[in-house]
């Protein structure tokens, strides 16, 4: 008998969430960075309301991206440092299940930070980010970025300079996706007609799906020695 794909994914993601609830080392680092980042931007843009309105989507995504990089690094380091990644590779489950399990965990951590940022930024920047479309954009953006982040963090976690290497490897690969996420958020918040920004949202979903399929296929090779 073999563990089903879903059971393996749930077990790996559940294990990550349970361990994180106890240690809070990933979430605390991400949340502290995100808080400091939005505060600094808030002070920098305080005097100029127009600039604040224009820049808010950029602030949201820059903050989320760098906070999530901290999370990806920590999450994969936890697997590598104690040799647990070997234990996962030894288990009779598909490599894709390991990837999706880690991805679900990483997504949950980044989404927690993203969902905490939206009300905080609403208060600090005086713009309503608690909107269904902003939430959907954040969900799609976090999902796509976590997909690339999980794959590349698995690769860089095996190196000594992983903290420095991950952003260098991740940002150029994720750039088209990030630009689309920023543009979609800006469209929603800027009050543009729905027909204009919906294209960006569809593009975001499309690119996310392509990245997901590619990363899942590539993980088979990355998980080998």
């Amino acid at each position, binding site marked *: 008998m073999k*563990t089903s794909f879903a059971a393996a994914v749930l077990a790996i993601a559940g294990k990550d969430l349970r361990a994180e609830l106890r240690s809070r080392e990933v979430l605390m680092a991400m949340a502290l960075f995100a808080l400091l980042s939005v505060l600094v931007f808030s002070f920098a843009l305080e005097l100029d309301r127009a600039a604040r309105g224009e820049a808010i989507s950029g602030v949201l995504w820059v903050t989320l991206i760098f906070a999530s990089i901290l999370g990806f690094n920590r999450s994969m380091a936890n697997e590598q440092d104690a040799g647990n990644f*070997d234990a996962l590779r030894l*288990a009779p489950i598909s490599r894709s299940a390991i990837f999706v399990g880690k991805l679900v965990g990483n997504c949950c951590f980044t989404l927690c930070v993203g969902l905490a940022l939206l009300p905080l930024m609403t208060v600090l920047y005086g713009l309503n980010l608690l909107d269904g479309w902003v939430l959907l954009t954040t969900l799609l953006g976090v999902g796509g970025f976590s997909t690339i982040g999980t794959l590349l963090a698995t690769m860089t976690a095996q190196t000594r300079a992983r903290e420095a290497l991950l952003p260098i490897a991740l940002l150029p690969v994720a750039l088209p996706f990030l630009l689309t996420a920023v543009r979609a958020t800006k469209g929603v918040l800027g009050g543009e007609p729905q027909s204009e920004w919906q294209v960006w949202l569809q593009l975001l979903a499309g690119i996310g799906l392509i990245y997901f399929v590619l990363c899942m296929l590539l993980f088979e090779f990355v998980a080998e020695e």
Partner: protein
Amino acid sequence: MSGERPIIEVEALSKAYGLLPALRDVSFCVGRGECVRLLGANGSGKSTLLRALAGLSKPSSGRIRVGGWEMPKEAAQLRAQIGLVAHQPLLYENLSARENLHFFGVLYAINRAERERRSAELLRSVDLHKRAESLVRTFSRGMKQRLSLARAMLHQPDLLLLDEPYSGLDQKAGELLDELLLAARSQGQTIIMSTHQLERGAQFAERALILSRGRISFDGPGSASEISAAFRRAGDAPGL
């Protein structure tokens, strides 16, 4: 060895890390139910060989067949039949001992009731039943090693690969491990156990395989004095 096909067949196996050779032209077979001690000094290639047998490391050249499957290409077919105790404990520090065993039980498709039963039984065997709910990060090195052994035996593998299983264990825990391995052997499990301590495991593993700087320098049963002499010679062997 009996007439049936060996569980492990290694032919001309070599492995190098960059320019540094770790294993050189290693060939041997292990029969089903056999118990082999893999002896050698630090850096002789024992861990590299065990990782290759587990399918975690690709050989630079040569062939490994485990249970008839080519490793690591066909490793997926027999992962459920391998249990590994590695240098690192392969345990999650922020999960309890019981949670660790349950997590791996799910990955190895052991149903809930059986998982509960085997976890409780193994925790008792390795004398950790009183600390079942404690987080692994609060465990000593020896306790982690014992839990690691329980994790490796949880799915009742046909082949147990143990890399220095006695390291970090005190006298009592070492005796517990001896009992566990004797029981595993009586159930027909094949055991390959690496150690750099000559006296370890001698009571249940009659065959010794001595690695010296990546090459097999002795393979076979022998008296304690023969193995000891071969081990000393291996330790004195000139460098590559």
